[in-house]
């Protein structure tokens, strides 16, 4: 079982880094063997972590094909660099950070290069969430399932999606996100707020959501 419960698991809120790196049986041995060039160990590490890496890519990119390409890149990068893993952080944390960095690099290459991400992640006025000064009270509480939320997240503008996934799903702090996205912490907070407002708009009208990356 890849995501087995550990003694450290808890339902209370804590940073994602603690929630996403439970010890995995056989992982330590596989890392040592992979560092020695054992191909079977590569396969074992892929099997242990493919779902986590692919799901992260899919959530950040909102696109199956790009997510598969980035999963491939992440593992190729991992296998080429595994000799440099010294165990100073949990392997899954190391791989998670490596994947996030590769996806961000990919996004910059796609169209964000040479321009500050802070300027380009802001969506257009049409995409921006509406301010709410008097809409009818239509509560979301209890009405949103995982698939619907996943569809809505996939439809967020890229900048909103990145900050929402990194903060609310993956548990990064605003200062970490600001460093990763090369923006201010204020911008990260503002983008997160707009992402949640936009999700609220979409989740109030779930029948309008596409199939998105939930498939």
């Amino acid at each position, binding site marked *: 079982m890849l995501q087995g419960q550990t003694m450290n698991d808890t339902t209370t809120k804590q940073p994602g880094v603690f929630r996403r790196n439970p010890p995995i049986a056989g992982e330590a041995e596989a890392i040592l063997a992979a560092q020695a060039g054992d191909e079977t160990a590569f396969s074992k590490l892929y099997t242990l972590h493919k779902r*986590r890496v692919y799901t992260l890519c899919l959530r950040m990119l909102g696109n199956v094909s790009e997510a598969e390409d980035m999963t491939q890149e992440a593992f190729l990068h991992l296998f080429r660099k595994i000799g440099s893993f010294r165990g100073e952080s949990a392997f899954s944390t190391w791989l998670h950070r490596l994947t996030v960095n590769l996806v961000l690099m990919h996004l910059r290459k796609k169209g964000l290069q040479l321009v500050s991400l802070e300027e380009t992640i802001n969506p257009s006025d049409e995409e921006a969430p509406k301010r709410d000064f008097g809409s009818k009270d239509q509560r979301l509480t209890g009405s949103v399932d995982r698939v619907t939320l996943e569809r809505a997240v996939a439809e967020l503008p890229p900048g909103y999606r990145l900050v929402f996934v990194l903060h609310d799903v993956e548990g990064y702090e605003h200062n970490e996100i600001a460093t990763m996205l090369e923006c201010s912490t204020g911008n990260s907070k503002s983008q997160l707020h707009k992402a949640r407002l936009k999700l609220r708009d979409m989740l109030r009208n779930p029948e309008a959501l596409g199939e998105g990356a939930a498939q």
Partner: protein
Amino acid sequence: MTDSNNNKDNVLTCAEFQEQLPQIFAAEGEIGHNPELRGHLATCTNCSSLVRDLEYIAEQARMLLEPTHDPSPDVWSNIQSKLTKDEKPN
């Protein structure tokens, strides 16, 4: 200075309250400690509904931490073939 639905003890307008929301959410517990914010929330159904929904969305986001998607088998085939190529001497 106040919205029509605010009483005299609740001096924040909805616009002012919502302006502060990104910071409020980033500093957990701020609403509880700030009488102005608490006062506005107690009397404004619109803003209290908004806050409740945004808190709910943030809570539900944790459902997405669990990885639920597998890449297609092609991904591993491609990785294997690239690793094999890398090993071949030029």
